[in-house]
């Protein structure tokens, strides 16, 4: 049967164009790929190629015609063995046969400043065009009991966060041959911060891999290996250097599961120290908690205690998703009691009430907990009983535990070393407004790092970081004291 050749669009925004020139004439034999005509807009030119084989029976729109609407039939092709004159006379009114199309706006379109759409559309039936509701972050379950993570009567041994992290990796590497560690100085040097101490000796160079100084490259290598089902632990000497690799963390690791319709995920852990150490200046002191917590497709973990560091890192290594595991250099050397269990894990996504109280909720994580806990002690002296929540995981954030606590205390202060704008504290405040606004007796207050690149001078650095006095002051303010 006769085939209509339609005016094509060069972009989803194009509505009409000029039919500049016919390169074939009526009666010509054409085969797929033959250039039939040239069309032009003010931005681009394009050749119209034949898709089907046949004879060009009739040209409907002649050379040099301006403003030809997209999808208008411009010629008729007689199929093989078909009568050419019959085909030629089958011309319909152009408007009637225009297929409908309604592509979504594209970046191209915005860049070109075009907002009009081409003709409306052959589009599958869609009965419900409303946006489905996002899965609720509030589960309405009673608050998670972190105490149950450690069975009663379990022996506790003191160890540093550094040792806890090392033990977590070693235990998982013993259990699963697909787990390996890669990064700068993780093997022979024994870890730039000694977190991987002894792993090379136990597991060998095949599984404990010193990389060149090449964050972008080895992050991509790690993600590629994870696509095949291996379970890499990629150590960044600090997360400041992961900025060179952030494309692979976000575009390659976090998005692929979604983009593949669930076929291909990346079971990978990116870990290393995050945030300020001491006197290392702006390029080695950035806290990236809020950055990574912004991205769907990632889980973001940032423990404070050695027990949580161990239990969460073991869970992270087993998790099938890409995990950002944010450690803290200053905490590495601090000791905490850690349960002596063969296989101690802590679930990702659950906060822990570190200190119970009734007057004000202080929410923090990682090294922020040191300010929060000292502030709670100070506040106690002044008769304010603070509850301190250690988030432990930033994404998915345990809104349940925060909300349950705020419903009890009616007041909340957030504490973090990161910058104030779009920070973790801002997110917590919003979630409280969404879920417990009526329970609030005061606006949520936040204590953060100052809105400046980290200075080097000792006095300025101290000023740039949060401190206990600020937390105490904020807590008193929300208690109207």
């Amino acid at each position, binding site marked *: 049967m006769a085939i209509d050749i339609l005016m094509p669009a060069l972009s989803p925004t194009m509505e009409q164009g000029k039919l500049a020139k016919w390169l074939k004439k009526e009666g010509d034999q054409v085969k797929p790929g033959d250039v039939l005509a040239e069309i032009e807009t003010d931005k681009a030119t394009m050749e119209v190629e034949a898709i089907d084989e046949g004879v060009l029976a009739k040209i409907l729109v002649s050379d040099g015609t301006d403003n030809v609407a997209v999808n208008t039939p411009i010629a008729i092709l007689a199929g093989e063995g078909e009568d050419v004159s019959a085909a030629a006379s089958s011309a319909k009114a152009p408007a009637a046969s225009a297929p409908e*199309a309604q592509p*979504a706006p594209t970046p191209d379109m915005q860049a070109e400043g075009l907002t009009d759409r081409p003709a409306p559309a052959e589009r599958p039936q869609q009965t419900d065009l409303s946006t489905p509701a996002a899965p609720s972050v509030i589960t309405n379950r009673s608050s998670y009991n972190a105490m149950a993570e450690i069975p009663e009567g379990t022996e506790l041994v003191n160890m540093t966060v550094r040792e806890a992290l090392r033990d977590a990796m070693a235990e998982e590497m013993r259990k699963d041959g697909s787990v390996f560690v890669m990064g700068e100085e993780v093997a022979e040097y024994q870890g730039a911060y000694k977190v991987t101490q002894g792993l090379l000796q136990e597991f060998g160079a095949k599984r404990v891999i010193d990389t060149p100084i090449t964050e972008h490259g080895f992050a991509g290598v790690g993600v590629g290996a994870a696509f095949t089902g291996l379970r890499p632990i990629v150590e960044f000497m600090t997360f400041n250097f992961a900025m060179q690799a952030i494309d692979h963390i976000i575009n390659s690791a976090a998005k692929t599961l979604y983009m593949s319709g669930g076929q291909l995920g990346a079971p990978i852990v990116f870990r290393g120290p995050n945030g300020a150490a001491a006197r290392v200046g702006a390029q080695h002191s950035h806290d990236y908690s809020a950055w990574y917590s912004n991205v769907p497709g990632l889980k973001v973990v940032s423990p404070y205690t050695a027990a949580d560091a161990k239990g969460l890192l073991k869970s992270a290594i087993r998790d099938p998703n890409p995990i950002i595991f944010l450690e803290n250099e200053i905490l590495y050397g601090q000791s905490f009691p850690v349960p002596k269990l063969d296989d101690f894990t802590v679930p990702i996504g659950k906060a822990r009430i570190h200190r119970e109280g009734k007057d004000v909720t202080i929410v923090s994580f990682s090294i922020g907990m040191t300010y929060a806990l000292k502030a709670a002690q100070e506040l106690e002296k002044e008769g304010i009983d603070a509850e301190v929540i250690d988030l432990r995981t930033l994404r998915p954030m345990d809104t349940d535990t925060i909300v349950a606590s705020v419903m009890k205390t009616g007041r909340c202060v957030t504490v973090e070393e990161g910058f104030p704008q779009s920070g973790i504290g801002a997110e917590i405040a919003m979630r409280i407004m969404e879920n417990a606004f009526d329970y609030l007796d005061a606006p949520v207050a936040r204590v953060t790092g100052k809105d400046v690149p980290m200075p080097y001078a000792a006095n300025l650095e101290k000023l740039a970081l949060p401190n206990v006095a600020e937390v105490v002051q904020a807590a008193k303010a929300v208690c109207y004291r």
Partner: protein
Amino acid sequence: MAVAARKAGRAGAGAANKTTSTKGSTRGAAFNSPQFDKNQDLSAYNEMLLIRRFEEKSGQMYGMGLIGGFCHLYIGQEAVVVGMQMATKEGDQVITGYRDHGHMLACGMDAKGVMAELTGRRGGLSKGKGGSMHMFSKEKHFYGGHGIVGAQVSLGTGIAFANHYRENGNVCLTYFGDGAANQGQVYESFNMAQLWKLPVVYVIENNRYAMGTSVSRASAQTDFSKRGVSFGIPGEQVDGMDIRAVYAAGQRAIEHARSGKGPYILEMQTYRYRGHSMSDPAKYRTKDEVTRMREEHDPIEQVRRRLLESWKLSEDELKAIDSRVREIVNEAAEFATHDPEPDPSELYTDILL
């Protein structure tokens, strides 16, 4: 001979090109184009024709507004991926950038699923959530489909790392273009691949234009086969329009990588007939250049001529192949036009496992 003709054709466009010579530390001799037997030519013709017809149909459907966003067609470059696939064995992986439809079809992925992904429908290979640049198939060992120029090079090196780790004997074919070849992570990957002797073949599809910027305007070293020299990675320039040359070079490169000698670079000298994406100003090259490439070096036409002249197939027999291919493409287009869009509930699935 095709190689010589190609050389002449290119000289006219002002690019200095050598053909099918070898570079790097291990090879010095030039290779003659090997011959294909009838079955190889037939298979090459079928596969390349499928890609061409599929892409023509994609372009048409884009013009009708059924495909949105970006759509990068592979027309003109078909011999590269088809020839390389002929040199692989089951288990070898493929990863590429955004001009990926041809790679998916050559890996054996279902034309319907690819086309339905282009139209954003639920039967698409990524359930309509990935689009033209983002499709994957574990079953066919195809790892995407990546929209960030150069990212696939580190990722492919990582897939090769996993082969090495597992000692499974597989090789990862990592494709990228002359544009991506200037990205820093490419050299980070070259370094690690050679340092650790990873089984990876870097296939640089030099189609002479990174979007609209010609190789000579973007690259200080336009001989891409030399891009691994400082890492000691051997490389060759290959006539990427002659599938026989591609296949032979692919065999050499894959054998090198599989035998534990590390990475290998193949610069495929090829040509893209269509624009970078669909909206292309077509001002950065002359029409004559495109026409000459199509008329003198078309990869499919070369095979077609051999089928007619050397293998004495009739026009009718070729027409029958053409009809079968067209049927596959038309079925795919039909499916992709009428398959429903994803259910709204799919918005929140596949974010985490």
